[in-house]
């Protein structure tokens, strides 16, 4: 535990830095959206403003990151040999056990928070020599939380605007702002078509056969991007789940606006609606989860980390004990979870502590995860994401690959302590299905952006799977690395599309490597990264394997899956599916790369007009390529992983045996570590397999892909139709809804309308009677009064002479008279 002074000092500094980084894009948005109306449509000022805002945000985030690392006293370059890490694990475990013994006597529930505090202090004593594991066991050592503003208080229920800053937050901030900055810069070039008073949209045809014309919307694009950055950073900075929900919806709105940026295109507006509506489905689950939490906990805050008041409030501290376990009582349906901070709302009769039924905790977790399903395009709500590629490519890069869709993963990671093993299993299987479905569709997709979109779905599935099987670090690690290389690839595809004059079909490309070398080779970096390729059997001491970022994170995921399936043989699907899919991933990514950049030009027209993008677009590519290569350097012992690891919930590191109702075995760090090497080797092997296959198919052209398609016509068609999800939903939901709507309309017409017509007729009849009454009685009465008033006035007008002097006389005379009257009658 840090001292309160240090806590508040560093916490405030971080809060100001990140809040500034968070609010700057909002400022930019306001200026752009209002200033844009009056500014010149050909001005690039909005773009510079947006870049300035988000760039400043990046610098602030960078400062915050350094500050945080400094405050956490973290040795990021923790490149020990692998044994020492394992030893550290055991040491930490031993220390943990010792402390358990120390406190077992006084560990009753009445003064639990107190015990919690002592616990933290004890860990602090032994913390420094133990390496990063001590941080992991000391749950909130380097987390800062606080409240911006209290929105309202209803009894014991509190709604506040909070902030919560830990290693994950600062890492996400740095990642989001860096990628957003690059994409903003890229978009200056990409969206330069819009810098006109008369933009011709080639995809919208007017009735006379021409194209639709409108004014350019350059400023609006950047305003939306800024708003998105604001929302995304707010989501990351949020200190309670309700606030997360607010920004969750806000990013949804931004996504809607950006997908529907070319609103005149039917496809774009439909895709925007689809994205929005499908997200609502997931958010419904989110709302249910929120209601459960609200009803049983009464707080939304993640955790209270102030060393003076630690443990007094916060969801995590209420659910988990100090060593990260759930404290349960009862069995079966009677099973309840005892809340730790004595803050909850419901108490059992015989139980001094507030409790929450176990199944409700599961339901809450599933609900929240439902939101994540929608936002992260997981099965079964994945179909909106490919359609979302209707938006401009920078949007796809920023919103629909790197940041917003990763928010679901982020939330699962952030909310991890609230998830019971049952929920984790659901998460794992959802991710497993998603990654396979996405990868298979990507194999047959021909639209360059669609390939990337399905790849995104697949990779998000990987992350979910990792989180579900207990590889917390692996999932979030992959989140960051994926953000870099996927945004890189999207920007590359944007560059290709820009260079080919908005041609997106890979079947019309080919051989572009000569025309656009920078794009080609930066894309290659991304492809290698996502495929998880590495140079086998060679490793630089201290730095691990020679590989790009994707290798390290995917390696970690596969290792987690492997460990999990070895501990739970019944769930071995959770290892083999991602393993196979790793190969598929390599295959389709290289397929895309070869189809686009190599081989013979398939469409000479496109090829002739293709050109390398301007420097403003290639520079971000190079920056992102650099990060895609090196951001995960050192693997799980590297700085990025270490940074994220500080946030890892306590119970994850140790794992759990026979957890939950279903007896799930969750792997701990040391178990995953045992499988790490073998998992890496297997994954690499599979990835090479996929790569070689792709090279044979599309690089060398040995196999005739057309023939293959014919041969596997059924499967191919099934995959082309995206596993028939859209058709399925059409039949399952849309058609029935329409039928019900038809019935409802008929009911309206036949029953309700007639009833209303009858009512209206009644009213008309009553009012006609009323009118007669009015005319006969009320009017006459009023007229009589008016006549009377008027006649009185006529007779009185002679008194009012209008002569000033007479009035004065009146006054004087009346005063005298009044006085005499009073004088005569007043008792003396």
């Amino acid at each position, binding site marked *: 535990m840090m001292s309160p002074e240090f806590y508040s000092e560093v916490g405030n500094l971080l809060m100001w830095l990140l809040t500034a980084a968070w609010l700057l894009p909002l400022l930019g948005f306001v200026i752009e959206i209002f200033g844009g109306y009056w500014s010149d449509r050909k001005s690039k000022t909005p773009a510079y403003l947006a870049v300035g805002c988000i760039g400043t945000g990046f610098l602030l985030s960078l400062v915050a990151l350094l500050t945080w690392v400094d405050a956490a006293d973290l040795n990021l370059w923790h490149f020990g040999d692998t044994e020492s890490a394992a030893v550290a694990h055991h040491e930490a475990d031993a220390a943990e056990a010792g402390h358990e013994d120390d406190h077992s006597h006084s560990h009753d529930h009445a003064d639990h928070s107190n015990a919690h505090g002592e616990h933290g202090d004890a860990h602090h004593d032994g913390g420094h020599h133990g390496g990063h594991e001590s941080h992991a066991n000391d749950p909130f050592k380097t987390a800062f939380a606080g409240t911006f503003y209290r929105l309202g208080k209803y009894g014991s229920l509190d709604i506040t605007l909070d902030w919560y800053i830990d290693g994950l937050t600062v890492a996400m901030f740095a990642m989001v702002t860096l990628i957003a900055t690059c994409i903003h810069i890229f978009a200056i070039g990409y969206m330069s078509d819009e810098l006109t008073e008369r933009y011709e949209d080639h995809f919208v045809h007017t009735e006379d056969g021409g194209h639709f014309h409108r004014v350019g919307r350059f400023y609006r694009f950047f305003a939306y991007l800024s708003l998105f950055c604001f929302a995304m950073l707010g989501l990351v900075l949020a200190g309670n789940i309700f606030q997360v929900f607010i920004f969750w919806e806000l990013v949804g709105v931004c996504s809607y606006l950006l997908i529907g940026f070319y609103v005149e295109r039917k496809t774009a507006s439909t895709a925007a609606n689809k994205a929005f509506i499908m997200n609502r489905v997931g958010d419904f689950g989110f709302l249910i989860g929120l209601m459960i939490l609200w009803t049983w906990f009464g707080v939304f805050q993640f955790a209270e980390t102030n060393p003076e008041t630690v443990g007094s409030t916060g969801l995590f501290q209420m659910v988990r004990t100090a060593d990260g376990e759930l404290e349960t009582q009862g069995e079966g349906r009677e099973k309840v979870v005892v809340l730790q901070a004595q803050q909850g709302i419901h108490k059992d009769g015989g139980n001094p502590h507030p409790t929450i039924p176990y199944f409700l905790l599961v339901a809450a977790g599933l609900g929240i995860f439902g939101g994540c399903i929608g936002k992260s395009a997981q099965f079964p709500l994945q179909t909106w994401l490919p359609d979302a590629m209707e938006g401009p490519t920078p949007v796809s890069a920023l919103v629909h690959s790197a940041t917003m869709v990763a928010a679901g993963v982020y939330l699962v990671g952030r909310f991890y302590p609230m998830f019971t093993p049952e929920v984790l299993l659901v998460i794992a299987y959802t991710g497993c299905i998603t990654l396979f479905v996405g990868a298979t569709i990507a194999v047959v997709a021909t639209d360059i952006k669609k390939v990337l979109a399905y790849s995104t779905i697949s990779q998000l599935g990987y992350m979910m799977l990792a989180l579900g099987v207990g590889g917390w670090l692996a999932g979030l690690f992959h989140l960051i690395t994926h953000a870099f290389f996927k945004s890189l690839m999207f920007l590359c595809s944007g560059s290709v599309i820009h260079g080919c004059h908005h041609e997106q079909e890979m079947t019309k490309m080919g051989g572009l490597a000569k025309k656009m070398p920078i794009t080609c080779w930066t894309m290659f970096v991304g492809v290698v990264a996502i495929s998880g390729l590495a140079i086998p059997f060679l490793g630089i001491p201290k730095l691990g394997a020679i590989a790009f970022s994707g290798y390290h994170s995917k390696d970690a995921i596969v290792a987690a899956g492997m460990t999990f399936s070895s501990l739970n043989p019944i769930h071995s699907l959770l290892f083999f599916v991602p393993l196979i899919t790793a190969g598929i991933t390599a295959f389709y990514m290289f397929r895309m790369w070869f189809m686009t950049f190599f081989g013979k030009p398939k469409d000479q027209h496109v090829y002739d007009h293709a050109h390398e993008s301007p420097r403003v677009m290639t520079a971000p590519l190079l920056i992102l390529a650099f990060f895609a290569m090196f951001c995960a350097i050192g693997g799980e012992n590297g700085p990025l992983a270490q940074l994220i690891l500080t946030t890892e919930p306590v119970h994850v590191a140790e794992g759990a045996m026979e957890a939950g109702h279903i007896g799930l075995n969750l792997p701990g760090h040391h178990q995953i570590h045992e499988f790490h090497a073998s998992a890496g080797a297997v994954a690499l092997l599979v990835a090479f397999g996929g790569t070689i296959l792709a090279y044979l198919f599309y690089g060398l052209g040995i196999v005739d892909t057309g023939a293959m398609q014919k041969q596997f016509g059924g499967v191919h068609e099934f995959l082309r139709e995206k596993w028939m999800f859209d058709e399925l939903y059409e039949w399952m939901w849309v058609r029935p809804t329409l039928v019900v709507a038809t019935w409802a309309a008929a009911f309206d017409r036949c029953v309700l309308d007639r009833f209303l017509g009858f009512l209206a007729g009644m009213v008309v009849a009553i009012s006609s009677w009323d009118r007669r009454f009015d005319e006969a009685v009320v009017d006459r009465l009023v007229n009589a009064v008016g006549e009377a008033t008027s006649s009185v006035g006529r007779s009185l*007008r002679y008194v*009012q*002479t*209008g*002569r*000033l*002097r007479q009035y*004065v006389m009146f*006054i*004087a005379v009346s005063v005298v008279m009044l006085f005499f009257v009073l004088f005569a009658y007043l008792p003396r």
Partner: protein
Amino acid sequence: MENVGLEMFLAVSAVLFVCGVVCMATKRNAIGVLMGVELVLNGANLNLVAFSRYGSLGLDGQVMSLFVIVLAAAEAAAALAIVLAFYNNHMTVDVDQATDLQG
């Protein structure tokens, strides 16, 4: 001031007041009427200050009379403006001619 009591001042103010009222009542010239008003206000003022000196009114009487003076000046300005406007329209300042609104 030994021999002069409150009554004396009140008597003077009564004279001023009555003169003002009579002035208002007899003068046909609008400006004469205004002068009557000033006299009335001065009578009241004298009362206020006299009570402030002799009574328990304290400083309040003086403050009140200050306000009365200031507001009387404002009144005079506004009334003069009205008289001028009246003169512009009727070419006279005889208040008996101001019968436009007579019932």
